[in-house]
């Protein structure tokens, strides 16, 4: 098999693999399986990036997604009822709208492939792409890079503020009350709210 043919085959394997595992995300009952199907889908996308010549980006995508999807699995198991799908269920709500939205979005993105004017002179495979990326980061895109640092810092601080109950001054919500679900339960006169 010639090399170009092999690349074509690999592309289709990754492309179909990513779509199929992406579909499975919504058809499985188990939250852990759903998260790991999504991971497989991302890994296939990473493979496609590598085939496109973005070796570093593709591999970094695969590397990063392992941690991210594990966190996703943990959080999904934490908050979803019946997380392992012991009782079979549907992962999607409002099926018709969801299907319609999915088809429309897919067609919109896919149409780009036909409508956009791609250059017919393929670019030479960039040698030393990682170096170029590094020089870009330290040079022209320096501000972007540093802004990302600040954004990540605020993310971390936000995570701790929002999600952590305990802090150095004790329990965060001590003395606070849960807001009522119905507005008429709001107790304006300071009397016992009726259940």
């Amino acid at each position, binding site marked *: 098999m010639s090399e170009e043919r092999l690349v074509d085959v690999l592309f289709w394997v990754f492309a179909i693999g990513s779509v199929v595992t992406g579909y499975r995300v919504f058809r499985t009952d*188990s939250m*852990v*399986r759903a998260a*790991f199907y999504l*991971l497989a889908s991302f890994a296939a996308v990473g493979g496609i990036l590598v085939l496109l010549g973005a*070796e*570093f980006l593709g*591999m*970094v995508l*695969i*590397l990063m997604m*392992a*941690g991210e*999807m*594990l*966190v996703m*699995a*943990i959080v999904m198991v934490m908050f979803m009822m019946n997380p*392992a799908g*012991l009782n079979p269920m549907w992962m999607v709500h409002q099926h018709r709208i969801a299907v319609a939205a999915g088809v429309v979005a897919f067609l919109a993105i896919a149409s780009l492939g036909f409508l956009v004017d791609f250059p017919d002179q393929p670019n030479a495979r960039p040698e030393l792409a*990682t170096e170029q990326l590094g020089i870009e980061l330290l040079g022209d895109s320096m501000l972007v890079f540093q802004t990302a640092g600040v954004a990540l810092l605020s993310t971390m601080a936000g995570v701790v503020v929002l999600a952590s109950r305990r802090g150095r001054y004790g329990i965060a919500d001590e003395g606070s009350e849960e807001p009522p679900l119905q507005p008429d339960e709001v107790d304006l006169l300071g009397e016992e709210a009726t259940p």
Partner: protein
Amino acid sequence: MRTYASPEFALLAVGFTMVVGIYVVAMLDHVVGGRVAARPLLWREIVAGPARSAALLIVQRRMTTERTDTPGWMLAPALFAALAATALALVPLGPDLVVADPETGFVVFSAAIAFVMIAVFLHGWSPNSALPLHGAYRYAAQALSFQIPFLLAMLATALPAESLSIVEIVAAQESAWNVVRQPLGLPIYLVVGLAVSFWGPLNLPDGADLAGGTSAEDSGIARLLWQAARAAMLVAIAAMGAAGFLGGWWGPWLSGIVWMLLKTVALLVLLIAAGHLLARVRIERFVVVAWVLLIPLALVNIFVSGAFLL
């Protein structure tokens, strides 16, 4: 132009290395454990012991628990072993003696290490049993904490090489091994290496307090493959440590491949001895130490060794 082997040779070479490596780990563990236990060691037992134990697990029939995630349970050891194989394939034995040397070899290796947490989590989740489940979640905490110090400690080795290729990282150590240039790197790497293959003091997911943790429900072939994959990962960690920090094939008098093997075995002995001589670390303490101590130390390591390069 990057070095790589033909696919058939790659599979054979990696498979052979894994089988030999796993056997060596089992023998070393027996020897070191015997020394620590002050127990007499018999050559016959050292050499034949691992084969006998493996045969026993092959003869043993596998039990399952009720309502398991069977595909996940099957996939976990296979994924773990495949990750160990991938990691081993990237380790060069000599300047031209490597199965694969991608330009981003270091990122590929990191990805292989990162996916271990998926394999272990799957392994603990799948049996639908409380003790393995706790092991799985413990490894998740452990893995999310060691991931960054691991990457940072390894990344420092890429600075002098000016490349993410493992071969070039080793080649750049001709004048001085990284263990000299970056003295903090190897200790951090070894601590994290123990955590990756959950060995000894960091065997928290499969620990004794969980009666075997994620492998508490494993029997027969499933147990054999899981333990073998874990040993293979330890070999990969030791081999990459030898390449990244101990100068790989560089060394006087002997040929490069011999040096590489010697260094790998030396690190293996160190890791296995640590397993028998250091007590288990509490998971919470490990998480705090990894974030508050290992990450800053790894960064200091990067910047100090970087400053010397300028």
